[in-house]
């Protein structure tokens, strides 16, 4: 099982002292967090993509390329890549290029983006969100798998005899996750292609998330990619830890109360009950995260949201130390012990290449 960190990349004032980091500080902090993710023994770092303040990560492959050069092991990913407003041709090129730079340590997560004005800024219409995600991904999927593409769709200029370069590393397209909080069409899309499905699992109650994942698993089997319990599921999670749970609650409360998205809404206690948010001791985080398996079945990737709402870099790095030292080793052991042998790991470049070579050898 893979464990990692996903970052929204928000620039938010620290509510305890009113200080707002500069964009430069925030970008450098994201680099430090990504490097720390590898240092403490986690497996994945995923960056968000945004094109409006107060967010910095508008250029994910620039960031991930730099992190690739300074790491050796972690998988570089996204959360999410905007399949609606980006040109699928540019996504095909950028991420194939990143694969070569990073020697295959790349996958990515598709998402639609829910900021209304971003669509018109990029010449699109948010009311076409699902249709854009469907058509653009169909083209991206083709561009990574066929050397010469003729193509015509509704949303971009047609292609005649087009070759996206560079070709994917070793002819293996990056593994793709599809992320969606509430659209059954996206779970259906992930199932159709046999791709991974990721639920951010932060803002909504478990009962809802469960229905999205059950739909994906059922349809994954329907489309013949394997049994429902072999579908590739990723989950988010939001945690804040201190040795004593009361200290965690006391320290995190001002960040929670003022956080983007849910701040000034439900209480920390209500939100902890309604959603998977866990604020407490490392043991509480372990216990809560283990319940995800009970709700959603054996899954392949767990990403944590740590660096948001104005939390200082130092605090975020402390959270990563605790994850690496106390939480993830236990979760790995427990999840691995419970997982039946027929449930696969999340595909990596190496595993996809080995599977392709094995299929070639037996053909």
């Amino acid at each position, binding site marked *: 099982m893979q464990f990692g960190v996903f970052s929204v990349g928000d620039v938010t004032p620290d509510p305890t002292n009113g200080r707002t980091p500069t964009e430069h500080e925030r970008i450098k902090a994201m680099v430090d967090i990504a490097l720390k993710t590898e240092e403490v023994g986690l497996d994945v770092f995923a960056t968000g993509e945004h094109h409006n303040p107060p967010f910095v990560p508008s250029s994910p492959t620039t960031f991930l390329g730099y992190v690739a050069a300074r790491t050796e092991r972690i998988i570089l990913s996204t959360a999410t890549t905007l399949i609606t407003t980006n040109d699928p041709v540019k996504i095909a090129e950028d991420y194939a290029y990143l694969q070569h730079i990073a020697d295959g340590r790349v996958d990515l997560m598709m998402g639609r983006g829910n900021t209304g004005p971003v669509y018109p800024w990029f010449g699109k219409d948010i009311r076409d969100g*699902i*249709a854009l995600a*469907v*058509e653009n991904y*169909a083209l991206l999927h083709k561009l990574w798998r066929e050397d010469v593409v003729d193509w015509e769709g509704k949303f971009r200029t047609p292609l005649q005899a087009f070759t996206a370069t560079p070709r994917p590393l070793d002819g293996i397209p990056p593994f793709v996750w599809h992320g969606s909080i509430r659209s*059954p*069409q996206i*779970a*259906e*899309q992930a*199932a*159709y292609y046999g791709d991974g499905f990721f639920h951010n699992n932060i*803002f*909504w*109650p478990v009962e*809802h998330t469960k*229905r*999205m994942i*059950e*739909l994906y698993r059922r*349809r994954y089997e329907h*489309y013949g990619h394997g049994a429902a319990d072999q579908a590739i599921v990723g989950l988010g999670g939001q945690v804040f830890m201190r040795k004593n749970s009361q200290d965690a609650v006391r320290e995190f409360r001002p960040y929670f109360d003022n956080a983007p*998205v*849910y*701040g*000034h*809404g*439900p209480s920390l206690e*209500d*939100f902890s009950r*309604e959603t998977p948010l866990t604020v407490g001791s490392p043991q509480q985080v372990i216990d809560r995260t283990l319940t995800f398996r009970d709700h959603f079945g054996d899954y392949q990737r767990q990403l944590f949201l740590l660096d948001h709402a104005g939390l200082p870099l130092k605090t975020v790095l402390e959270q990563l130390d605790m994850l690496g030292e106390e939480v993830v080793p236990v979760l790995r052991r427990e999840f691995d012990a419970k997982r039946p042998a027929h449930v696969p790991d999340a595909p990596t470049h190496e595993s996809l290449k080995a599977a392709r070579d094995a299929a070639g050898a037996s053909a």
Partner: protein
Amino acid sequence: MTRRTLAVVSAGLSQPSSSRLLADQLAAAVRRERPGVDVVTIELRDIAHDITNNLLTGFPPAGLREALDTVARADGLIAVTPIFNASYSGLFKSFFDVVEEGSLADKPVLIAATGGTARHSLALEHALRPMFSYLHAVVVPTAVFAAPEDWGGATVQGALASRITRATGELAREISRREPVTVIDPFDEPTPFEELLAS
């Protein structure tokens, strides 16, 4: 006769409230028209915090989820609000702002209101009726407004009572004309991907 359900939404703020009193009278009159109808009453005051939290977080907490499901599954709806500043109350509007898109489409709705003076009565026609029309509900022609004087003496058997009878008769007929409501669950029956690709 098929079992039918009636959802009653009351946005009264005081306890007891005259909006709830009117809502109960309307529900009782529908029961007289259609004995055996299941009535579920939702007091928005009880879920006011949940409604605000839904506006802020984007998802309904459990208590509100239940209310939204009740409204979506109901064969008919009675919606009662106090009139504030010549319109529905903010709480009433906020509730219908978080009702899922499409859940009121073709649903028979009886609109009703209470207010401090009869001069507020046309708010039903210029505020509530357009909102429910926008939501594609079928609003019955008679709207019911209860002014302070309607609760007193002889008028109880007069204008208010006759409007209640007329409006609930219209609502009961609209319910009867329709098949029982079935809510399609997109998680049970997703649109097959080939259809999404082709559209």
